[in-house]
């Protein structure tokens, strides 16, 4: 039944075999290749490179107009290079001004480099398949480096980007360690909410960000566990985010939502360096809700009974009928979420190497406890290895990097946030006098019962990549990247009988165990040809390459119920009933051919053409392949003669790009009409229809347009960029919601709708003050973004008729229009917009609220005085958010303190309606409409001191030893008018982000 044919398999093998040969040829060629001969007299030039005080190892010394000869200074700062006596040396080093030095017949040339505080334009930016000098790039690439990352006490890579990059919006979805983040690069392109993830590439290897957890096991998190926690921020040298068509089209079908390129740290030539960093931190919840105390709560309850015309309290109304202590008052948020998470982080690195071979080895260990009651711990350990080598003749190069991370996350499988906000303040004590869980005679569900239900996730992740390159001819480079990833996660959740009220009489025969194993491994081979030459008065670069990628995900989900003893609960074999809930193997195959053509004319006019032909196994026969491409152009007008010598303008560039990318995030096998394993009945395991099928869906296309201006003034002491972009996604691949009468509620298909994301991104970097002892730089970024549904044929009659509006953003809510509380009845009233005399759905639920941020950004300041450095970042967002939903006031659940202003008696004008114990149907309906009305949305704009770091470099008499003391804080201050908890947070009922204060030391020698 499997569709294997020898022909097809044979072809695949043939491809692989060919590329194997292709690679193995490269060393063979090396012995035969050309020797570059010079017609001039060659001299050996030597010297020492310093910055005036210290020697500089690792500096590149090249000879002008001789592409193939260069040298690197050794750990004593010495270099030697063979050159003609009339040549000119080009000396360059990151962070220093590139210097041109004519040899003028000398044999010894000592060089002193000038430190360059602002000239980041010379930095080479990683663009994935190629790198480009920042000043010469045609695409839109945002970047942060280890400098920005090291100041942040966070464990997730996405957290490091919050507030630091224009056009990149990151939202944390839970404060529990190991949880997820949501990232949107230039807004939501796909109507499908789970189709908006960017492509992650770590050292050249695509890293699948699809969830690895299961909602059956990872119940602590609002979304299934994301694999991105495996990436250790400490190991990252830089993160580049590719945004526009010019930068992303070379990633074709996977570039629509942007590309996140992560480069890990590499060793540098020179003295072997040891670096040890250790820090310890404490984390607490940023903001609590303001809830009622017992007095307010009981007053509400009493009034609710009066309102409902009930003269007696029911036997089950324990809070008020005298069963519970009327004077008890517990702040449940403090009790259940008020703990302190302790965080420790230790990291060590050894790096160094010679001119031809460099290495870096590092290890790290991170632990984080919880703010919940109980002993829970998140542990993460990792190691990173990087090796670079180049042959004597500098033609052959090898780069190897491998990272291994192991996580062990132990959490209660239940987030206490919901209980913390809903429990009546006079609910009983958690423990009885003898220290056991107090069930208060079965009158409540003790929240700490959930301490017994434990979630454990163990994840191991290996990412390895080797890049082999060989310079066949001057300017012609053959290169192949070979990557491998292997991730395995093992999640367990136990629900022992002790989580139930003992009055239910449950014993270990009702205990349950849930297991989820996900193994995902992938390999990728990317052979490439790079060719570059001078052409006319310009430079031409050509890149051709291919990608073959194969990813296999194995998933096994099991459950066991009924154990002879709760101590055997982790042993599935001891379960009376063991079931396999899911056992599948998903294969994803991906193939592409890509190319880039770049022409740079006199560093003034640059054209960059990129293209990709993509094939993906996620689409049915006939729909697998598609073409993508982009054009990028740049004009460096500051290099034009008429501007060249203006001292005020040090840099000026106008760039633009247009092109197409695609999106294949639709899941695997969706084009097949299949049955999948169902549930056992009468000894037979059932077969169940997997889905409604549609074999004809194809790519989602995303067309991107960008124009940007980059300006540097006064030697780039003021550097600013402004980018205008417009992205349009069409042929939307969506699970179209269907009426339940079709048997399913979703159907995968292409929808002829267009979504536009347009915006302005603005960045400004200023060097406010620069001297030997005091430096002050400021980075500012600001993004105005607008998301808009441009067209949607047949929206009115489509299932989306109540979700979207043409001309409006996707992330809108259609709501009832709140009028206020009727002073006579005390019930919420809403606008009867269609004037039919009643509130009807959907006619009256048409008031539109946009939940996208209007603008967002960050402002970062870095001040250093002598040995003291202070770095702080304010993040700001202008947005609206939903209020925290608490249900109708008056029932046996706590409410926000503001509800004391509820309507009391006829004639009152109150902001909130009448209390009810649950019998007042009008009030229940009123509350449910209120939650769907514009009154349930409020301004949630905020300014947050996202990060602050103070570093002191302790003066030591020991040479070449550095000792730093660091104080860091995350989410320390938040200014907002939003009253319902953390303003950036949308996962209601889950733990909001934590505020973290950290102290650490760093020793380098």
């Amino acid at each position, binding site marked *: *039944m499997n569709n294997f044919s020898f022909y097809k398999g044979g072809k695949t093998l043939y491809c692989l075999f060919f590329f194997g040969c292709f690679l193995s040829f490269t060393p063979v060629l090396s012995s*035969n290749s050309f020797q570059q001969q010079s017609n001039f007299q060659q001299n050996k030039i030597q010297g020492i490179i310093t910055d005036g005080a210290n020697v500089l190892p690792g500096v590149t010394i090249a000879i002008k107009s001789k592409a193939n000869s260069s040298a690197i200074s050794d750990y004593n700062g010495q270099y030697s290079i063979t050159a003609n006596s009339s040549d000119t040396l080009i000396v360059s080093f990151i962070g220093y001004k590139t210097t041109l030095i004519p040899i003028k017949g000398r044999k010894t040339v000592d060089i002193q480099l000038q430190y360059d505080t602002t000239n980041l334009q010379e930095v080479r930016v990683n663009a994935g398949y190629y790198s480009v000098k920042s000043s010469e790039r045609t695409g839109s690439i945002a970047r942060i480096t280890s400098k920005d990352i090291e100041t942040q006490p966070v464990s997730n890579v996405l957290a490091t980007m919050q507030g630091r990059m224009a056009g990149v919006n990151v939202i944390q979805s839970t404060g529990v360690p190991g949880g997820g983040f949501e990232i949107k690069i230039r807004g939501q392109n796909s109507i499908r909410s789970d189709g908006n993830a960017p492509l992650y590439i770590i050292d050249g290897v695509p890293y699948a960000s699809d969830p690895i957890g299961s909602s059956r096991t990872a119940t602590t998190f609002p979304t299934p566990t994301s694999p991105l926690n495996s990436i250790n921020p400490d190991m990252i040298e830089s993160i580049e985010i590719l945004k526009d068509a010019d930068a992303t089209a070379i990633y074709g079908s996977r570039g629509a939502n942007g590309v996140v390129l992560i480069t890990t740290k590499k060793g540098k030539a020179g003295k072997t360096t040891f670096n040890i960093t250790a820090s310890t931190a404490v984390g607490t919840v940023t903001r609590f809700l303001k809830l009622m105390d017992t007095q307010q709560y009981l007053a509400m309850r009493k009034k609710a009974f009066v309102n409902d015309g009930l003269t007696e309290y029911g036997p089950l109304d324990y809070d008020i009928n005298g069963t519970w202590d009327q004077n008890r008052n517990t702040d449940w948020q403090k009790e259940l979420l008020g703990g302190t998470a302790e965080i420790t982080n230790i990291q060590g690195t050894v790096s160094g190497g010679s001119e031809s071979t460099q290495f870096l080895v590092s290890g790290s260990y991170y632990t984080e406890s919880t703010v919940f009651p109980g002993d829970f711990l998140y542990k993460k350990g990792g190691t990173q290895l990087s090796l670079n080598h180049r042959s004597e003749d500098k033609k052959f190069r090898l780069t190897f990097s491998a990272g291994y991370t192991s996580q062990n996350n132990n959490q209660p499988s239940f987030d206490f946030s919901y209980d913390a906000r809903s429990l009546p303040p006079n609910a009983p004590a958690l423990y009885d006098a003898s220290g056991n869980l107090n069930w208060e005679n079965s009158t409540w569900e003790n929240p700490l019962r959930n301490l017994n239900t434990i979630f454990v996730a163990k994840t191991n992740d290996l990412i390895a990549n080797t890049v082999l390159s060989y310079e066949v001819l001057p300017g012609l480079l053959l290169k192949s990247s070979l990557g491998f990833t292997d991730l395995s996660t093992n999640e367990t959740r136990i629900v022992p009988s002790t989580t139930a009220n003992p009055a239910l009489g449950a014993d270990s025969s009702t205990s349950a165990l849930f297991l989820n194993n996900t193994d995902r491994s992938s390999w990728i081979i990317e052979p490439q040809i790079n060719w570059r030459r001078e052409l006319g008065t310009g430079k031409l670069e050509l890149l051709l390459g291919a990608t073959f990628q194969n990813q296999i995900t194995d998933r096994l989900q099991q459950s066991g119920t009924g154990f002879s003893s709760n101590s055997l609960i982790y042993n599935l074999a001891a379960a*009376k009933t063991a079931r396999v809930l899911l056992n599948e193997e998903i294969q994803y195959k991906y193939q592409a051919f890509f190319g880039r053509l770049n022409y740079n004319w006199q560093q003034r006019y640059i054209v960059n053409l990129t293209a990709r032909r993509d094939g993906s196994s996620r689409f049915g026969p006939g729909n697998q392949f598609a073409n993508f491409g982009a054009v990028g152009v740049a004009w460096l007008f500051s290099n034009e003669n008429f501007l060249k010598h203006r001292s005020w303008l040090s840099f000026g560039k106008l760039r633009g790009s247009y092109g197409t990318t695609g999106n294949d995030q639709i899941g695997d096998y969706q084009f097949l009409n299949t049955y999948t394993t169902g549930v056992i009945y009468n000894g037979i395991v059932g077969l169940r229809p997997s889905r409604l099928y549609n074999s004809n869906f194809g790519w989602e296309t995303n067309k991107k347009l960008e124009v940007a201006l980059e300006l540097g003034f006064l030697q780039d002491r003021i550097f600013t960029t402004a980018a205008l972009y417009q992205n349009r996604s069409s042929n939307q691949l969506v699970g179209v919601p269907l009426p339940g009468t079709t048997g399913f509620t979703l159907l995968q298909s292409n929808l002829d709708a267009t979504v536009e994301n347009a915006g302005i991104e603005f960045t400004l970097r200023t060097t406010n003050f620069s001297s030997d002892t005091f430096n002050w730089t400021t980075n500012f970024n600001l993004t105005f973004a607008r998301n808009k549904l441009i067209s949607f044929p047949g929206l009115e009659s489509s299932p989306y008729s109540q979700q979207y509006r043409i001309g409006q953003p996707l992330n809108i809510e259609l709501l009832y229009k709140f009028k206020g509380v009727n002073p006579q009845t005390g019930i919420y009233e809403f606008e009867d917009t269609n004037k039919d005399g009643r509130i009807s759905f959907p006619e009256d639920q048409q008031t539109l609220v946009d939940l996208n941020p209007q603008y967002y950004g960050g402002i970062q300041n870095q001040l250093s005085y002598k040995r003291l450095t202070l770095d702080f970042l304010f993040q700001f967002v202008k947005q609206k958010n939903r209020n925290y939903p608490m249900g109708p006031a008056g029932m046996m659940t706590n409410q926000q303190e503001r509800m004391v202003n509820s309507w009391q008696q006829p004639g009152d004008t109150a902001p909130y309606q009448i209390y009810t114990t649950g019998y007042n149907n009008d009030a229940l309906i009123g509350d449910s409409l209120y939650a769907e009305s514009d009154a349930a949305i409020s301004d949630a704009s905020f300014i947050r001191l996202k990060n602050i770091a103070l570093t002191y470099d302790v003066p030591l008499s020991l040479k070449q030893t550095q000792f730093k003391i660091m104080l860091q804080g995350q989410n320390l201050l938040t200014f907002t008018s939003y009253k319902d908890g953390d303003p950036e947070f949308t996962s209601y009922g889950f733990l909001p982000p934590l505020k973290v204060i950290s102290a650490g030391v760093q020793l380098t020698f």
Partner: protein
Amino acid sequence: MKTTYHTIKQILWVSIACMLNACDSFVDVDLPKSQLTNVTVFEDYATANAALIDIYANIRDKGMLTGAGLGISNQLGNYADEIISTQNPNNPSLNFYNNSLLPSNTSVSGYWNISYNQIYAANAVIEGVAASKDLSAEQRKQLTGEALFIRALLHFYLVNIFGDVPYITQTDYKKNSIVSRTPTLEVYQNTIADLQNAIAVLPDATATSDMERVRPNKATAQALLARVYLYNKSYPEAANMASAVLNQESLFGLEQNVAKVFLIGSKETIWQLQSGNAGVNTAEASFFTFTSGPPPLVSLSDNLVNSFGSNDLRKANWIKTISKGTSIWYHAYKYKENKSTSVSKEYSIVFRLAEQYLIRAEARAQQGDFIGAKEDLNKIRQRGRLSDTSALSQQEILDAILQERRWELFSERGQRFFDLKRAGKLDSTLTGLKLGWNTTDSLFPIPESELSANPNLRPQNLGY
């Protein structure tokens, strides 16, 4: 040197040629190992049977007919006068108990969506079997007959809960996504037609096959058809159809020991849902049972418990009393095994013979056959050790039957709610007893998501 250069050039060209041509089929993947195509499923009886049997597992575990707390046994018990809920807002029964269902209620949309998903699976079996060339005539009949029965069963419950509902008979989503609501009368006609077709092809119940009665057969379809006729006020047909079941005396009979009615081997069972793994008992028992008060979620209402005669054996055997101090609570105790046992003892019974007697009694009474009606009614009363009914007039007999049904069928898939509804007694019975009761609560709201996804289903039921 020239040869080297030549070699490199050759390699490059070959590699480019390969990239462009040879590897196009790289992205073809094999079928996932855990899935079968819809065609393959019906090429073989074992897999076709698995596709059908999965619907029973699905019905047992999810949707309206599950015996678990989210099914109608509990929720319609709360909605009517059988069960009371604690006021814990986390209690999913609370909105049912308060009669405060909203169109956005996820239990309500679950009933709708899951039922139509089960109907889809049944239609897929009917279509798959029709298209298959590899099944024998007997196999086709049995598979199709059971699928038709499932389709009728689910539509019958849907129409009684939601009023006019689309009657879905095929799997094409393009058609099914724009359907309108089928008038109630027509839903009944379609249900009856499907059941008649099912009866024509389904095998007879026999003493040897399917000892545990976990697969529907001709008698099961007849039992449902008898009920459908009764609800449709087709009394002669209802009486005849009930007789068709009752006359199979060698197979079915009233279990005279009240304590054994709900055991797996009960002779009274017409169809029950097998529990899956060995040793598992019913979801009803694990949901309804509590061992000490006050009850965590739901308990039987005093109103129901107090209506029993004090010497009714059903009260003693089918209701459990839990007391603490002066407080007393009750829970349904028809199914007694709330935990797994070494061998399963109870399955969730969907059709049993006692109901057929009561159907015939009512159909006979409606046709004026009072003697026959009382004869059937007394069979049920005698088993509970009650004296014969004293009812004389037609109305008295009908009232007695309604009362008897309450005692006999409580907590069994919403029978009480449906009885009050078709007798037109919802308002008179529930007003006052239930503070939240409104006349329009006789129908559930159509799920809000459904109305927005398919405007043809509008308007919403009255009152929502």
